[in-house]
Each structure stands twice: as structure tokens, then as C-alpha cells.
């Protein structure tokens, strides 16, 4: 049997604070509260890139919906601005988003 790599999704997030580590912990904590420890491990939520206001996290595709629910229900609040299967495409979209914000 072929051992296939799990599909994942990269999610970009805008947050108010400088440090983004607590918000990833908050997502994992909320996810665990709502969907349980096994689902949390399956989701494999990881911080990929950390910025002043924008950060990127990754998770498994099969748990994406639950991750989005957890992101929506954390305090302090954060906003999901983009999702993609490849980090390159996501970075491109974030660039477009920040250019659009500057032009406003």
C-alpha cells in the first residue's frame, strides 16, 4: 500500500498583538476544548511564519473546518484573511491584500 503524505492547508491570520505565539496556543487550546485531544493531534496545527500583525499557520486539510471554528472562537480575536494549499500562493495573496489595503 502506498504511504501518501497528508494534505495540508496554510492559513494566514491578522492579529492585533506583536507576538503571535500565544494566539497559536489559544487556537490549539480552543480546538482541544471543542473537538478533543485526538482531533487536535490529527489537526497538526503549527506556526509557519510570524509577523508583526500577520502570521501563517498550517494544519491538516481534514481538520480545516474545525480549525477555522477554533480560530473564530479565540480571545483575543484574530481574522482569517486567506487560505491556500501552497505557502507561495498564500504569500502572493497576502501581498495583494496588503497592496489593496495601502491603496485604500
Amino acid at each position, binding site marked *: 500500500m502506498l504511504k501518501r503524505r497528508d494534505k495540508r492547508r496554510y492559513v494566514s491570520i491578522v*492579529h492585533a498583538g506583536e507576538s503571535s505565539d500565544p494566539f497559536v496556543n489559544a487556537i490549539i487550546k*480552543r480546538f482541544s476544548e471543542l473537538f478533543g485531544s485526538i482531533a487536535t493531534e490529527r489537526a497538526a496545527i503549527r506556526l509557519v511564519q510570524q509577523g508583526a500583525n500577520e502570521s501563517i499557520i498550517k494544519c491538516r486539510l481534514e481538520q480545516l473546518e474545525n480549525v477555522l471554528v477554533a480560530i*473564530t472562537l479565540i480571545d483575543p*480575536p484574530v*481574522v482569517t484573511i486567506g487560505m491556500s494549499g501552497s505557502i507561495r500562493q498564500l504569500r502572493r495573496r497576502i501581498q495583494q491584500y496588503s497592496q489593496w489595503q495601502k491603496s485604500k
Partner: protein
Amino acid sequence: MTTTPLAAVNYPYLVVSENIGEPADILTIRDFNKVKKQMKKKIKKGTGLELTVNPARKMDGRSVGKWFSSLRDLYAFCHSSRCQFILSSGATSQYEMISGPCLDAILKTADIEPQSYWRNMGKWLEERLLRNVSYAKEAR
């Protein structure tokens, strides 16, 4: 708006209220279980019943579970009483806003089909706004 404008206006509007007795286009529900009995008697057909996501952020895991169950109950109530179910962010700042996919994920978690939700919402909003605009034109 919290009240109907006294004079004619040139823009479409919706009246939002938290009091069940008041005539309004949208009623914001804080705790559905508390007002369920009152709503059964007083609610008018076609009213929008709004539940906001914002308070759920500050709840613990168990309370969020209950919040999801009240969301499901409110949706079922809206279906039976021919009201429009509205799920909104209740945002007061840009960081509290919720993207479309996240709202869809919440709806799916509550066993609500997002496509039919948005379709019904679009229809309801169009009808309501059209009604309020024609009122303004007639009043002129």
C-alpha cells in the same frame, strides 16, 4: 438603526432591536433558552433573528458547546416560525470580523447547510430592504 425614522429617508434601512416586544426587522438574541417561550408568543413572521459570535469568544469550552446547541435550536425555531436566521460576527473592531469560510465552518458545525443559509439570507434581505425603501418613497 434602533428606531424607524420619523421622516422619509433616501436610503434602505433595517431596524435592529434587543426587545422582543418592539417592532423591528432584526431581533438580536442574547440567550435563546431564556426568551424561547416569550418569542413563541410575540414574534412576527418574517422577522430576522440574529445571534452574534462575539460573546462566544469569552466563553469556556463547555459554554461554547451550549452556545452551539442554542444556535441549532434557534435555527430550528426560525424554520418553524418562518423567521430568518442570522448569524453575525457582532464585531466592534476590525479584528473581531469573521471571514466567509469561518462563518461557513461554524454553520456546518451546527449542521446548517451554508449554501441554503446564504441563499435564504439574500432573498430575505432584498425583500426587507425593498419594503423599507418603498415606504420612504410613499412618504414623500
